[in-house]
């Protein structure tokens, strides 16, 4: 089911949690809502479920205005962060709850319910655990029961609030792959909330990034990573170096070094962002140079801290395998990719010379 969100606002008392969010979700998509805590991502998810009443704006479920429907009528599958399993019901009773509470006219027969529970248990790989109680299950198993319970109502959209938040790192990684695979098989339109960028980038068809109640960018993971739309995203996703610089007469300058031409009219302070892996130590590079101040190992990567000669800014640079460098060494730098931002907006270079070499 397509989900369309228009100018959605939500205010709690005096503080706005969402202001004017527009979002189009296509049927069958797996969307990750990513943002720091307090960015409004959970509020948005709850508004879609009907658990939160928006202060303004609309949500459409395939063309129908969802505000006409109560929570019960929306038929969403909501998986809570702590799963919210009914502790006095066993696994089978939990999963069948949504079928059993239907009005008599549309309620499946006990045999149908039993069969459907069996199918769902099979789907989430928990066959044989029908009569266990939630207290007797591991975190990962509870999560899958919660998922099966949400799928049992044949939801128009599946909503997951921090689906892996309460699990340990190992289980988390396994479940990510598993959930991605489950989505491929069932094809439910799915929206999940997370504050973990790796999770969002790895699982989502598209990632929507929220910051302070507003949608900053939505796009495929590669698009988000390679072309962040705002300085916030550049720093929030992956690692980024931020170097303040100046634009004068349509020329972006880092100290004395000319970076490239931009449209006339953008004058004054601006910010240059680039990732540590996009800065390459290259003795032939003439424009940027610096001095290595420290070397570090971060998991698979080796990093150097470099003080730029041009502005004195400290930046981080990834080193290729086997690179022989030492502290206080002087190096030339080449930037493979970068983003220039003025007034919080991305600015494009007019010439190709910006591939700083």
């Amino acid at each position: 089911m397509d989900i369309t969100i228009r100018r959605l606002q939500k205010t709690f008392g005096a503080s706005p949690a969402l202001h004017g969010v527009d979002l189009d979700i296509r049927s069958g998509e797996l969307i990750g809502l990513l943002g720091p805590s307090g960015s409004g991502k959970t509020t948005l998810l709850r508004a879609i479920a009907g658990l939160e009443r928006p202060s303004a704006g609309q949500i459409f479920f395939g063309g129908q205005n969802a505000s006409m429907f109560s929570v019960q009528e929306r038929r969403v599958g909501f998986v809570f962060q702590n799963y919210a399993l009914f502790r006095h019901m066993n696994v089978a009773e939990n999963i069948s709850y949504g079928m059993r509470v239907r009005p008599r006219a549309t309620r499946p027969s006990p045999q149908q319910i039993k069969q459907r529970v069996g199918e769902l248990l099979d789907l989430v790989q928990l066959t044989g655990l029908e009569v266990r109680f939630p207290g007797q299950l591991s975190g990962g198993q509870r999560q899958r029961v919660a998922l099966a319970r949400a799928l049992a109502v044949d939801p128009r959209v599946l909503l997951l609030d921090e689906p892996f938040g309460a699990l340990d790192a190992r289980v988390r990684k396994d479940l990510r792959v598993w959930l991605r695979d489950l989505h491929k098989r069932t094809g439910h339109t799915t929206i999940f909330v997370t504050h973990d960028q790796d999770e969002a980038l790895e699982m989502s068809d598209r990632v929507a990034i929220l910051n302070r109640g507003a949608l900053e960018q939505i796009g495929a993971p590669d698009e988000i990573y390679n072309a962040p739309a705002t300085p916030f995203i550049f720093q929030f996703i992956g690692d980024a170096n931020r170097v303040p610089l100046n634009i004068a007469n349509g020329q972006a300058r880092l100290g004395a070094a000319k970076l490239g031409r931009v449209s006339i009219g953008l004058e004054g302070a601006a910010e240059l962002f680039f990732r540590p892996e996009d800065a390459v130590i290259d003795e032939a590079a003439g424009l940027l140079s610096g001095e290595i101040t420290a070397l570090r190992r971060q998991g698979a990567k080796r990093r150097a801290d470099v003080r730029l000669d041009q502005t004195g800014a400290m930046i981080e640079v990834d080193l290729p395998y086997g690179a022989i460098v030492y502290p206080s060494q002087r190096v030339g730098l080449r930037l493979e990719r970068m983003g220039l931002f003025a007034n919080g907006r991305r600015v494009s270079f007019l010439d190709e010379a910006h591939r700083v070499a």
Partner: protein
Amino acid sequence: MIDLPLPETPLRIQRDRDALAEAPALRRTLIGFAVTVLTLFLFLPLATVFIEAFGKGVAGFLNALSDAEVQSSIKLTLIVATICVPINTAFGIAAAWAVARFEFTGKSALVTFIDLPFSVSPVIAGLCCVLLFGARGLLGPQLASYGVEVIFAIPGIVLATLFVTFPFVARELIPLMQQQGSDDEQAALTLGASGWRMFLTVTLPNVKWGLLYGVLLCNARAMGEFGAVAVVSGRIRGGTSTMPLQVEALYNDYNMVGAFAVASLLALLALITLIVKTFLEWRFTGELALRRRT
């Protein structure tokens, strides 16, 4: 590696007990003191009640209980409890629901008011009842003109008991429901359950042990209340005398067996309540953990 010289003699272990435990002598004194106090002020009186009740044998005990006035007091007490406990259970659930699930102005005031009966002397509660519904009270004459008697009648006793037992269920449920949060209930709603259905299948089962506990306490108090009932009932023997009032009346008549026979019934109720309560606490520690009256 550097070889550190070992101390000549191993560090002498100073004490053969936990660093935080008391000295054995002190411990024994404290325990002894507690046991003595408990024996003197709890076990002995309780034992006395049963010994006195059976002072003239089982026949005397049964005879005392078969007295018409006593029978009437037992009946009245049961009627009062049967009315008060369900009403206060319903109120307690509603109040706990409101306090735990919603934010509204006056919420803290409501919580304070729920506690009021704990802080007000029951006699004052009874007096308020008389002032409101008595022959010269605010509402009394009006009601009397419709033929409704409140004071010196069952309605007055019920009102006074309701007031005194007001907080028990609510106080038990509020912290429990606040701690549990509303995720389970919201999950039930997203799965299509109606509000009522959600209440019956999720909310109630989640608080059932706390609720039962509150109802038990409420019932014990409803049957045992003396002060407030004494003021409003007029203590008409065989008419508006509840069990606790009957105990006092019989005692004043020097009818020891009768007084203690009725008293033993009340004490038995208290014991059963305690046993069930202990069982619930033992069995459902987690679910009952978060409550404690001030």
